[in-house]
C-alpha cells in the first residue's frame, strides 16, 4: 500500500393495484396533522388553484435560486396553500414541478425578500379527458410505475421487466424508445448478459432463463415496436395530507452522466457523494450549494474508473470502493491524499467486485463474499476473522449494528438475508419471499436488520424473534435498493421507479410516501442526519442531483 497523489479540482392489474396504492395513500393521509416545523416555514407563500377555481392540494411549488441553482420545493395543502422556509433574498424562478394534468407554469425573475405573499398561481388543465395525452412533455413527467400502469400487457409480462430491469436505470430509459423485435433482442441480450451497469464483460450464460428473455423481447416489441403508439397515461394520485408536509431541496452537481451512487455526511455538515462511472467524488456544502470535486487517481489501463460505496468515518476520513478496478480507497480531505488498498477478489476487471461494505466502531471493514462474512483490516485488506455461511454465497449490502455486535446484509443473488451475531457467532440465513430481493440496509436501535428489497419489499430481520417480517410498498411497480433507520426507529428508503420516497413507521405500520419533484427517484443510498428534529434525510439521485428531504413532522 502506498500513498497516491491525488488532486482536488474545481469543476388491469393496474386498477386493482392502483386502488391498493390509493388506499395506502389514504392511510398515510390519515396520520393526524402535527404542528409544522417552524424551521421550515416563514418564507414566501401563496395559493395554487385551477382555472376552474378549485384549490389544489399536493401541487409542488418550486423556487430555483438564480445564484446557485438550488431548488426548493414545498407542497400545497388541502386549501391550496403553500409556504416556503425562509430563503436568501434574491432572484428566483417560480415554477410548478411535475404539473402533469396541468399545463406548465414558469415565472422567471421573481424577487424574493422575506415572507411576502406571492400572487395566486392559476393552472389550466391539459385535457378534459380522464387520461393524460401521450405528448413528450407529458410522457417525460411519468414515473416508471405510471408507464407500466399505462402500457398494455399482462401482469406476467410486466413482472418480467420489473424483476429483471429494475436495477440500473429508470423505466423511462426503456419506454421512450421504439425498436423492432430483432433490435429489442439485441438490447436485452446486452443488458442481461453484460456484467454490472457498464456491460463491458459479457457472460453468454446470462442472468436468467432464455425463454423469459424471449418473452420480454416480444412484449417490448409489441408495446414499444416501430408502429406502437404511445399510451395515454394513467396517473398516480397527487400528495395529500402528511405527504404535503415536507420540504425538498435539490442541489445540482458539476458533471453529467457520472452515475452518482452513494452519499455520506461528515461532521461539518457536508455531504459526500460517489460516482459509479467516472473518476470523481464530490463534497457538497449545502449552505452554498457549492461542490468541491476530488479526482480519484487513475486506475489501470483498460479499466473503467468509478466509486460505488462511499462512507465518511468518525474522523471524517472518506472511504470508497472501486467496483470496476477492485480497490478500496481512503481519502484524507485535509491533505487530499488518496490511499489505495487492493481488494483481492476473483472477478475480472470491469466486473463488479461484489456488494458494499460496512465499517464497525473500531474501524474494521466488513463484507460477505465467497460464503463467508469477513472482518477485514481496513488498511491492508487482510481478513481478521470470518464466519462461514451455509446457504448463501454472500450479501450485496453490508451493515453493522450501532454497538458493533451484528452484521447484516441482503443475500446475493438469492432472496434472503444474512445476519451474524458476532458475540455468539450465530449465523442466520433466513429466506425472504420470491423476488423480494433485499439489497442494502441498516440496523435499528434494537439491532433489528432492515433491508430495501428490489422487488418492492421492505424486509426486517427481528433479532429477538429470529424471524423475517415483510412489508410491501403501497405503490405498484416501485422498487427499493436500500433502507436506512433513523434515531426514532422510522425507516427511510427511496422508491425507485415510483418517484416517491418512503417513510415507514414500524410501530404503526404506516407508510408515508413523499412525492419527489422529478419522476424517477433512483436512490442508491440514503444518509440520515439525526442531529435535527425531525430528522433530515439525504440521498443522491442516480440521475445526477443531491436531494435533501425535511419532513415537518
Amino acid at each position: 500500500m502506498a500513498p497516491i497523489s491525488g488532486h482536488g479540482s474545481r469543476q388491469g392489474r393496474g386498477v386493482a393495484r392502483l386502488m391498493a396504492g390509493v388506499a395506502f395513500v389514504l392511510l398515510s393521509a390519515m396520520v393526524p396533522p402535527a404542528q409544522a416545523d417552524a424551521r421550515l416555514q416563514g418564507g414566501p407563500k401563496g395559493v395554487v388553484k385551477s382555472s376552474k377555481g378549485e384549490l389544489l392540494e399536493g401541487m409542488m411549488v418550486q423556487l430555483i435560486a438564480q445564484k446557485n441553482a438550488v431548488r426548493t420545493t414545498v407542497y400545497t395543502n388541502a386549501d391550496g396553500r403553500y409556504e416556503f422556509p425562509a430563503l436568501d433574498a434574491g432572484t428566483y424562478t417560480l415554477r410548478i414541478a411535475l404539473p402533469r394534468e396541468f399545463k406548465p407554469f414558469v415565472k422567471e425573475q421573481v424577487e424574493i425578500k422575506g415572507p411576502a405573499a406571492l400572487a395566486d398561481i392559476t393552472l389550466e388543465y391539459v385535457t378534459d379527458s380522464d387520461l393524460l395525452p401521450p405528448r413528450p412533455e407529458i410522457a417525460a413527467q411519468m414515473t416508471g410505475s405510471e408507464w407500466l400502469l399505462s402500457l398494455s400487457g399482462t401482469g406476467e409480462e410486466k413482472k418480467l421487466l420489473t424483476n429483471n430491469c429494475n436495477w440500473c436505470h429508470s423505466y423511462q430509459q426503456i419506454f421512450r424508445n421504439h425498436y423492432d423485435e430483432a433490435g429489442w433482442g439485441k438490447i436485452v441480450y446486452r443488458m442481461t448478459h453484460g456484467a454490472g451497469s457498464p456491460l463491458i464483460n459479457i457472460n453468454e450464460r446470462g442472468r436468467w432463463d432464455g425463454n423469459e428473455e424471449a418473452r420480454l423481447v416480444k412484449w417490448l416489441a409489441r408495446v414499444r415496436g416501430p408502429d406502437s403508439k404511445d399510451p395515454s397515461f394513467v396517473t398516480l394520485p397527487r400528495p395529500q395530507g402528511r405527504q404535503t408536509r415536507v420540504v425538498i431541496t435539490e442541489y445540482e452537481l458539476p458533471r453529467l452522466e457520472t452515475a452518482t451512487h452513494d452519499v455520506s455526511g461528515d461532521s461539518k455538515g457536508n455531504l459526500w457523494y460517489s460516482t459509479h462511472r467516472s473518476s470523481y467524488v464530490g463534497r457538497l456544502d449545502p449552505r452554498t450549494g457549492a461542490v468541491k470535486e476530488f479526482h480519484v487517481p487513475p486506475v489501470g489501463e483498460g479499466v473503467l474508473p468509478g466509486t460505488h460505496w462511499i462512507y465518511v468515518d468518525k474522523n471524517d476520513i472518506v472511504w470508497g470502493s472501486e467496483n470496476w478496478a477492485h480497490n478500496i480507497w481512503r481519502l484524507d480531505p485535509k491533505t487530499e491524499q488518496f490511499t489505495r488498498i487492493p481488494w483481492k477478489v476473483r472477478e475480472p476487471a470491469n466486473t463488479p467486485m461484489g456488494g458494499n461494505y460496512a465499517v464497525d466502531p473500531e474501524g474494521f471493514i466488513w463484507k460477505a463474499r465467497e460464503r463467508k462474512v469477513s472482518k477485514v483490516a481496513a488498511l491492508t485488506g487482510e481478513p481478521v476473522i470470518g464466519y462461514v455461511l451455509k446457504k448463501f454465497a454472500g450479501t450485496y449490502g453490508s451493515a453493522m449494528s450501532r454497538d458493533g455486535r451484528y452484521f447484516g446484509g441482503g443475500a446475493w443473488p438469492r432472496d434472503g438475508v444474512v445476519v451474524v451475531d458476532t458475540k455468539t457467532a450465530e449465523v442466520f440465513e433466513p429466506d425472504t419471499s420470491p423476488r423480494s430481493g433485499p439489497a442494502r440496509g441498516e440496523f435499528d436501535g434494537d439491532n433489528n436488520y432492515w433491508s430495501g428489497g428490489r422487488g418492492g419489499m421492505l424486509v426486517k430481520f427481528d433479532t429477538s424473534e429470529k424471524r423475517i417480517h415483510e412489508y410491501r410498498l403501497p405503490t405498484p411497480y416501485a422498487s427499493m435498493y436500500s433502507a436506512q433507520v433513523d434515531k426514532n426507529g422510522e425507516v427511510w428508503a427511496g422508491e425507485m421507479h415510483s418517484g416517491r420516497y418512503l417513510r415507514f413507521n414500524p410501530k404503526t405500520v404506516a407508510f408515508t410516501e413523499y412525492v419527489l419533484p422529478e419522476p424517477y427517484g433512483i436512490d442508491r443510498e440514503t444518509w440520515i442526519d439525526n442531529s435535527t428534529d425531525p430528522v433530515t434525510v439525504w440521498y443522491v439521485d442516480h440521475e445526477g442531483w443531491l436531494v435533501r428531504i425535511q419532513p415537518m413532522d
Partner: protein
Amino acid sequence: MRPCTARWMAAAIAAILAAQGICREAAAQEAASAGAKPESSAPIRDNYQRSLETYEFKKSAASGPERGREIFYYKCWFCHNEYTKQAPQLTGLFKRETLLSGLPVNDDTVKDRIRNGGAGMAAYKYTLSEADLNDLVSFVRDKCCWDSDAPPANPRYRAR
C-alpha cells in the same frame, strides 16, 4: 387523474374520514390569498423539468455535437466504449477510409449504419429522429469519443 379514480378516491376519503370522526369541512372554493392579480402562465413546455431534458437528450445542449455526446452515451457507449472487446472502437472513425462494410466513411454511410443496425446492433431508425442523427454524427465526426475521466459539465450547476 381518471374520473373513476378520482371519484373512488373522493368516496374513499369521505368514508374513511367520516368513519374516523375527523372529517373536516370541505376546502373553501375561494382563495383568501393576499396576492393581488392571479398568475396564469401556460407555456407548452418547461425545460426546468429535468426529466424532459432527459427524455429528449437535451441536458447538455439543445442541439449540436454536445447533444450528440449525450445521445452517444446512452445509445452507443455501452457497446462502443474504450474498454469493451466486442464492438468496434469509434475514436477516429472519420479518419478511416471505410467502415467494416467496406463503404466509405461519411455522414450518410454512418447514419445509415445507425438507422439499420448490424450483427449485434439494433436498428435505431425507429427511435432516433433525423435531428438526433445529425447531432449524434456531428459528435462522432468531430468530438468522439466519451472520456470517463472527464464527463461533461452540467450547465445547470452554477454554485461557486
